[in-house]
């Protein structure tokens, strides 16, 4: 069976199309893993041959067109988790009206029928709102630019409900056909979950097994997904609080309340500081944004922890898509010998969380990834618009380790050792030997 994987250059975000072709069906079986872009992703560089996000989606929709009837068809859309940089593409609702989608797979925490999941998502969303507004208000009050806070505002925004995109995926009328089947994985009582032939016959070729390795339903692991409340920031949230998919107007953001009447405010001269003393005091106070910043990181981590982690076994080839799973999920996989055994011999690895520090254990690179040109690691990143950017996404030492082990494809790199990055297309093709039981 032929396997083609295309990594679309969407900027900072994920969008992967897996096509499986065999004699059983004329058109290839298509699985789409995510389609999103971070708000703070660097603007498209047209001169370097990059396309706008919309143009990329158009191209994707063209790529999946069935020559027989000219209709774009995707067998399975996998939306790994609710972050904007993974699903924002689905909020462009008009585009998806042209696509036939047979199934949508989402992590179980998005199941609207599950009261626990609903509460969890609501809590995450509440924190996203609170921290977004807290940071925006504190930044507005402080006025000076603080690139770390700017970035955190985008990370918080990335974590909001993304309601429009979720509606496309879940409402039943987001695509050309009505009511595609939506699966929330893994199902309760099915851990570890395995989807085999009989269950997948209409969407994937015979012999393909999908292993669902996350998100866990284990209470101890779920606890990590449950972020703090950030209740102290509630008063900073304006009445019109929904962030949804529209960039909020910063003018509507409430200023933090004053602790005292302005009559108590005095000129710094009253303190009789020595030369330069007040400047250094005032500089200290980036503190003002420190806590919501940390809450944002935890929220980001919590939502990454909801990632649907799939290992697609196609004959002798293993395609591993862990979404943005970070340390908690990885630790669970690492501690389970059966799971680790499954991951051993991974052919294609979609590098977790754009190559950040705790989304790919060294042990995985060393023990599991297939060496040399038999395998490939795919990293979808782009610079961000914040001063200095994120120097460690992707983490240079991780990229080096991956390079030592296997072939690496990156949508972007600032490493001078990496010769001219071919922006598009990134396609990895291989042939799987079928017939494994």
């Amino acid at each position, binding site marked *: 069976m032929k396997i083609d994987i295309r990594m679309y250059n969407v900027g900072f975000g994920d969008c992967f199309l897996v096509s499986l072709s065999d004699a059983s069906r004329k058109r290839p079986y298509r699985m789409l893993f995510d389609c999103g872009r971070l708000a703070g992703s660097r603007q498209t560089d047209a001169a370097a041959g990059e396309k706008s996000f919309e143009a990329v989606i158009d191209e994707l929709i063209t790529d999946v067109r069935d020559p027989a009837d000219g209709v774009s068809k995707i067998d399975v859309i996998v939306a790994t988790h609710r972050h904007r940089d993974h699903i924002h593409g689905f909020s462009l609702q008009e585009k998806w009206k042209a696509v036939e989608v047979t199934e949508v797979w989402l992590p179980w925490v998005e199941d609207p029928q599950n009261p626990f999941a609903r509460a969890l998502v609501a809590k995450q969303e509440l924190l996203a709102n609170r921290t977004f507004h*807290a940071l925006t208000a*504190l930044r507005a*009050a*402080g006025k000076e630019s603080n690139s*770390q806070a700017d*970035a*955190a505002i985008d*990370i918080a925004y990335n974590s909001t409900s993304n309601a429009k995109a979720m509606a496309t995926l879940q409402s039943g009328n987001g695509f050309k056909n009505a009511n595609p089947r939506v699966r929330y994985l893994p199902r309760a009582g099915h851990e570890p979950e395995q989807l085999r032939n009989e269950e997948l016959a209409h969407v994937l070729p015979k012999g393909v097994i999908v292993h669902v390795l996350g998100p866990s339903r284990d209470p101890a692991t779920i606890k990590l997904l449950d972020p*703090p*409340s*950030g*209740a*102290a*920031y*509630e*008063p900073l949230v304006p009445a019109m609080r929904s962030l949804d998919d529209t960039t909020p107007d910063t003018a509507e953001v409430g200023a*933090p*309340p*004053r*602790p*005292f009447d302005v009559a*108590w*405010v*005095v*000129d*710094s001269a*009253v*303190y*009789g500081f020595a030369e330069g003393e*007040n400047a250094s*005091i*005032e500089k*200290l*106070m*980036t*503190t*003002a*944004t*420190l*806590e*919501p*910043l*940390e*809450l944002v*990181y*935890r929220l*980001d*981590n919590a939502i990454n922890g909801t990632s649907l982690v799939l290992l697609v076994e196609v004959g002798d080839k293993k395609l591993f898509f862990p979404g943005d799973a*970070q*340390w908690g999920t990885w630790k669970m996989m690492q501690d389970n010998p059966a799971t680790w055994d499954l991951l051993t011999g991974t052919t294609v690895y979609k590098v977790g969380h754009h190559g*950040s*520090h*705790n989304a790919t254990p060294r042990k995985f690179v060393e023990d599991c990834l297939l060496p040399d040109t038999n395998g490939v690691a795919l990293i979808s990143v782009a610079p961000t618009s914040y001063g200095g950017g*994120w*120097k*460690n*996404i992707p*983490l*240079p*030492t991780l990229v080096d380790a991956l390079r030592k082990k296997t072939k690496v494809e990156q949508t972007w790199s600032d490493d001078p050792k990496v010769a001219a990055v071919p922006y598009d297309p990134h396609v990895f093709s291989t042939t799987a030997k079928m017939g494994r039981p």
Partner: protein
Amino acid sequence: MSNSYSTEPVEAVVQQTPIPPIPAPRSLHPYRRPSRRPLQIFALDPMRIDRGKSGRVTPRATVYVPFEDDLKPGPRGRRIQVIDYDGVHRCYYEPIDLNHADVLIRDGLAPTETDPRFHQQMVYAVVAGLWADFETAIGRRLTLGRKKFLTIFPHAFYGENAFYDPESSSLMFGYFRADSTEAGTNIPGQMVFTCLSHDIIVHETTHALVDRLRPDFMIASNPDVAAFHEGFADLIAIFQHFKLQEVLVPALADSRGDFARSEVLLGLARQFGYSTGGKAALRSAEDGDPDPAKYRASEEPHERGAVLVRAVFDAFLSLYQQRTQDLIRLASEGTGVLREGALHPDLVSRLAKEASALANQLFTALMRAFDYLPPLDVTFEDFLRSIVTIDLLLSPSDDSFRVAIIEGFRKHGIYPTTAGSLGADSVAWGGPGKEISGFPFHRGLLTDVIKSLDAIDPEGYDAVEHMYGAAEKSASVAPPPDEDDSSKQWRTWAAELFDFGMAHRKDFSLDEEVDIVVEGMHPTMRYRANGRPTIDIVVRYVQSRDDLVSGDDLKFVPKGGCTVVADSNGVVRYVITKPLPPRETPAAEATPLAWVPEATRRLTDMQDRLSRSRSSDPGDSYRAEPGSQALRINFALLHSDHDEGSDE
């Protein structure tokens, strides 16, 4: 006093005597400087009082802090400066002038939530009072050395948090508006000030003072280090509260003197458990037996710190019972069972006195234990051993205190893993095992040493706590140009201590190839069993091991070190070590060094923690310098973490 009697002035017998001549004018008698300044504070957090239940105003107290006559508005003193800069609104609030006559005459401003100047007064009062208590307990003066000031920002930022920032040597207090829906005992939408909470102030100040005594405790090289910082700070906050009679007396009256079953006092103690988790920390008395497995199982600093709090608090309860049972028997005609109804105020006052004295004894013991703590990588076991060591030295004949401490710790799973038994002699630190002589102690320094022990004298000498290493030795670091004679003497001494440490690296479980640094040295005075005072010298040696940096992109340098305690005869009495594996295993050595397995274990554990600490930091990738803060304790995060977790 109500029962004091007054006497009517007796009519004087008028005698006709000649009026004496007016003496020649002379200079007036100067007023004697007061040594203390009284200041009013809120005794309990005004935000956390259960108003419905108590129906009372927030308890207030007056504390007495060292009098600084040149205190500037702020207040800004010689070591503590309060600067009311609001980082959110980018403005300064009007500073209080504690030397203004209108303020002086009424013991400072009366407690109020609405005047920022009272907030400034309260943080200053609590910090200065605690600092003085620290100095009294450790028996010497404590300044901040190069950092000079502890700067306090009572309204630094918007948020439900407060923390100590070692970088800037400052305490940052947040303010926030109570949730409009879930306000608990607060008025919905009310502004809440963390700087008005006595226990939050004490807790954060304790972090700062512990950091002054042991700067390397900021590196969480084992799970106990951060937990020690948290647990210790909570213990100090609890015992500081027991010193406030305004709180203790009514609480004891309400609970009929029984601490262990007293809802009010345990409730209070819980409320003080600011960081180790109000509800969780002090439950043992009512929840049956403590669980010794909890200590090994909890890695999270607050949970683990709560184990330390409970261990010490259990010792407190048991000692309180021992020391008050005679009073209870007296008051109950020998039955030990008190009659129904309110206790006699005299009994309450005696019980409060016992509780206070005991709290003070514990506070002193916990503080003095620092002289025997290693310079880094502290464990609860080290702390226990140090407390027992100092108690054995201070009170060799009465063992009730150390027995209660050992038992309190044992019940919570903390005991020395290497000691043969739980007898005080084997729990206490042992001697160095061999005679180490030649410790440089100059009798010529004695005057300065004695001066440095004077905690009250504002001009008193602070022991040299500046680092002294190879750089200073080789004079590549120039001494300060305005150095006075006595400072010069201390530097000479530091140089000799450096040489002594270098020569004895092997005895101190340090690497013989790597330079050491004298991280600090100070005299400490104690009374011998025969009642005579004696002076010991405490030196901390630290060794940075660049050669052990793991190949990753981390800027983390493992450190080894030891605390050496010598007496004034130059005899080394204790060497408390935290070894790291030597650079090369000395093959020539006939017998392998006994401490190497322990050193290897330490290093492996540290490296393991290092990689886990980074993996579990959700923000590592987004930070300006990823990885640089690995294992470094960040109180801002630690506390916010906790507060959020406990509001379930």
